[in-house]
């Protein structure tokens, strides 16, 4: 689709550095890119969904997602009450999915909170923190290096500094919110901008889950027959 994007960029003579995708396009592209990067189908779905969540809240969805798809995978995390253990920094996406899965269990935030530990690209964890808040029907604070980074209300709505963005690595704690959110709720938007470079990288990853056409497959799909009726 890059050719289409470049052609569209010439539309009206505007030289844009960013591509604007619809949210379904964000989902489809990231799902395929994650699968192309070797994620399981389940985590590829989570990755696409997380990208949509970030885009829908006006956040830079591609930088951290790409970092997760192309960087080191992160250590294996072992959930436990109040403090999770690992042999190093964990992946923001995988730790996030585990947080959402264990949200209502003793290993979740509970009433005392939980220390996730060092997390790579922790922005990727926020969509899952929203799910944890919804699942537990409780307000949660996400602490980054012991400072409040983002808050979630009981219905999973995120409150954060509008400038919230890429952090390569950080110490993450999830705690029941001590008070009402100090930030405004981020607004919902219906599209996601991505730099051309990031877009090209995601497309390259996505292509590695596709299969080249064969004469046999094209013929069966209808190419061998005339459509002139």
């Amino acid at each position: 689709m890059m050719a289409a994007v470049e052609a569209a960029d010439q539309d009206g003579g505007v030289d844009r550095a960013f591509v604007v995708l619809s949210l379904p396009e964000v989902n489809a592209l990231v799902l395929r890119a994650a699968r192309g990067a070797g994620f399981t189908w389940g985590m590829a779905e989570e990755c696409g969904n997380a990208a949509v969540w970030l885009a829908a809240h006006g956040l830079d969805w591609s930088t951290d997602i790409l970092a997760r798809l192309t960087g080191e995978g992160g250590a294996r995390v072992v959930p436990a009450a109040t403090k999770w253990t690992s042999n190093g920094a964990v992946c923001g996406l995988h730790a996030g999915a585990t947080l959402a899965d264990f949200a209502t269990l003793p290993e979740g935030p509970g009433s005392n909170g939980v220390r996730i530990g060092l997390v790579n690209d922790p922005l990727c964890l926020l969509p899952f923190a929203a799910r944890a808040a919804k699942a537990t029907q409780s307000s949660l604070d996400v602490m980054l290096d012991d400072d409040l980074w983002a808050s979630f209300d009981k219905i999973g709505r995120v409150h954060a500094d509008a400038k919230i963005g890429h952090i390569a690595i950080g110490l993450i704690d999830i705690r029941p919110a001590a008070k009402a959110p100090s930030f405004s709720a981020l607004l919902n938007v219906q599209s996601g901008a991505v730099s051309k470079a990031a877009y090209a990288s995601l497309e390259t990853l996505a292509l590695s889950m596709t299969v080249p056409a064969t004469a046999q497959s094209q013929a069966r799909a209808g190419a061998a027959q005339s459509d002139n009726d």
Partner: protein
Amino acid sequence: MTCAPLSPVPEAVNYRRNPADVMHLSRLGLSHPTRLSFLRILLRRMQTEGWQFERPVFDFDAKGVGRAVYCAKGPTQTYSLVAFGHDLPPDMRSDRVIATAWDATFALFDGIPDAADLDRLARNVPVQEAGRVTAKELTLSRANRSVRLFEHVVQSLASGIQPDAAALAETGYLMRTTAVYGSGKFGAASYASIAHRPEVAAPFQAEMLTVWLIRTFTVDLVEHMARCRGGDVAVPLDPALKRGLGVGNSTGLGMAPFLVRHPMLLNNWIMVREEALARVRAQTVTDDTRIGAFNASLDAALDNAQLWNTMHPVQIDRLADLRSGLVTLAQFVGQAWDPRGQRPWNTLWLWAQESLPFEAQEALLALLLEPHGDLVDGLSECLSSDEAEAFDIDGGMTVGELRAHMAENYAWARACDYDKQHECARFWYVSEDKLEPRLGERFDEPGGERELPLDIGRQAAALYAALEQRPNDQPVAHLLLQEPVHRPMARRVQMTRARPFAEIRDNLLSADLLPIDMLRCKLAFFGANRFDPRSDRWVRISLFQNCPYPHELSVEMGL
């Protein structure tokens, strides 16, 4: 999940078909359009709300090159079909898979486009996938002429005579769409962003409106070209001939996985249809008006079955079943059925289960709904689904609970040995060239390691096996952490609980799979008719044949 609590016919619950009987492709692949099909829902709404239609732009040359705008004005919102006509050399029309140019291209604009919008669309719409549209557009589409028929109609009208009625009936359309993209494709507005509008809340309403307006455009274009060619001698197309024209459509494998990827939608579509049938069967008595309407529908179905052409061996056999079955049905209705008896529609249905082939049984379903709009049309509100809301996995659910949910909807999946070559003969994948779903032969073609997760039966069987190794009281979160390969299926089991019509209960990897069955199921819900498979993987259909045109909508009966 169920419309039962709101049903005006609470006893319908006793007349529902068993999902285990309904959800096989041997039945789903024989689906017929009904009054709950999406194009009927669109037409009824526009009629009820008194929509107005205008054509503010129609600027074409004698070859059909130019642009047009058709506006459909509802109570709160206007939608505009922007159409571009092109002069396509015949050799560029010959291949539907790698096509890069078309006779006509379209976008459905949200509102009324201004000159700048039209110029932007003129740069992007004609190149389709190679361009970009914006959130101001709801659909992107293209169509090719039916070469023989289009030229024949233009030449006839230009000469002052009507085209050959038999030729029109045989093809049934002047143009055939090769894609109608919606919901966020190529930059268009997503369904989620417009789903709050009542007029587009039901499935595929923007796509149906697009195709309906394209139908009008195709007739306007042949009449315009005939006038250019014939001058004062030219005549307009006879209204009766015009009425029988629809819009053709070629649909391939790209559409097939939709039903698998959207289990909640599939559940709602089938549940609505089944609930509608059950409400009719539950009626204790009927009246002359309904009997008359049913007989009229049966006559129309008999005519339609005669006009339905196909060369595909599978459909030839099915068509024979349909024709003979409808004749048998008409004989029974005329001679043996007692419409004054108790639960007359149920009597008819039960007789059909014993006496008619599946193809005719499913046709009867559609016929039974026709005279009962007052009972069933409200079900159209239950067709949509917010699948994003059901995406979250409940990791606190226990293994025992998950297993119990599996028993509701996935017991069928355990009956197959997926290691047998016959049962895993195919694999679904995304093609590199078109980024479209395709079906490969696992043991003949490369790419099996990159297959799509459409193997629902195989995944369900694997999850069953994994759950058996775990204690019933263990939370599912532990399974997901230790065996992440089961994540998609665990999500799916939770998503489909209490949704008994969510799954096609067949092995979609089997050598016996006929993808055209999946296509027909979906297309029937659109309202498509006269399915004409061109192989086991793609099918031609027609939409809106014998439906009203915009200027006829307000006085149309029986929508």
